[in-house]
């Protein structure tokens, strides 16, 4: 067993320690939902006010890139879930491989996002006063891009944090810190990563697939 694992004196046993860590993570994820919630509310308000503008503006987004990114995130969610299963069974090497696959997929997501952003910056489809594009009919199309860049920007920032966390957890795992008895950091990093995927599952139809 790894020397880095011990039960802190304020916990009665390892199980309670692990459950407390998980509950803490779930409460944090709750605040994450509310963080994105603010922008979701802005989205709802402006979409109801300007339904035609939202419909016209969403056509500026690339559905193919959005779909590929959705698939990439779903597969990365699957790989991190499989990685957690491997460490639950005490298979460190397999867990490292799955974590590495997750990190690679996260980077693929960001690369695709970069191409989308670069295209929009080039066309001037930017938030607020930076909006210089002239081809979207309807009232206040710059509002759509304010919301688009806020939602996808905060999300991409979460992906960056996720990559850092996954890398940290993977390095700790390679050093042998985790085992079938102790894998809490892997598990709660996985929870964070799934939430990032979960948010994207809603962002994708809301931004790319306005019917």
């Amino acid at each position, binding site marked *: 067993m790894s020397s880095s694992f011990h039960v802190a004196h304020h916990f009665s*046993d390892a199980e309670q320690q692990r459950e407390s860590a998980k509950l803490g993570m779930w409460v944090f994820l709750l605040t994450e939902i*509310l963080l994105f919630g603010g922008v979701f*509310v802005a989205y709802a*308000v402006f979409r109801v*006010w300007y339904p035609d503008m939202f419909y016209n503006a969403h056509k500026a987004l690339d559905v193919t890139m959005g779909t590929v990114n959705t698939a990439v995130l779903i597969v990365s969610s*699957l790989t991190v879930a499989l990685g957690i299963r491997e460490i639950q069974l005490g298979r460190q090497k397999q867990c490292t491989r799955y974590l590495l696959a997750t990190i690679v997929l996260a980077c693929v997501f960001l690369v695709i996002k970069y191409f989308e952003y670069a295209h929009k910056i080039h066309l001037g489809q930017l938030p607020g006063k930076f909006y210089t594009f002239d081809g979207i009919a309807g*009232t206040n199309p710059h509002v759509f891009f304010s919301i688009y860049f806020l939602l996808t920007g905060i999300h991409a920032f979460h992906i960056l944090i996720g990559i850092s966390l996954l890398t940290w957890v993977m390095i700790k795992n390679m050093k042998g810190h985790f085992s079938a008895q102790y894998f809490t950091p892997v598990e709660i990093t996985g929870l964070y990563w799934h939430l990032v995927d979960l948010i994207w599952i809603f962002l994708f139809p809301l931004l790319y*697939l306005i*019917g």
Partner: protein
Amino acid sequence: MSENQHTTHITPLWIYFAVGGALLVLTAVTVGVSFIDFTSIFGVSSMNFAVAMIIATIKATLVALFFMHLYSDSKFYSLTLLSGIACLMIFIVITLLDTNFRGKIYEIEGQPIEPAAKIYQSENVSDQ
């Protein structure tokens, strides 16, 4: 530390792959149905939005239940997640009750929040 016995529930491998497959299929479905005009088929407005949100909710539920282990874990974690979603719903519904219906109570004219803000087709602003 033999007293630290874990009672970890190990989810069978096939469940992970089945859920992953279902999520990818549902992604294809949500893209596919976005090209169908449900609103005119059913004669009800915002049907496409409803269909997209139902599919997204099914996907999110699958991720939460199986990838995030809510299905096998203590229900207290599910309660935490659901209370967050409940707060978000209250936030959205009460805000929309204001922004959509304030014109029914008061005679209001839409005003730019900031006088210097760039407003396109400003004659439509009063539609708010």
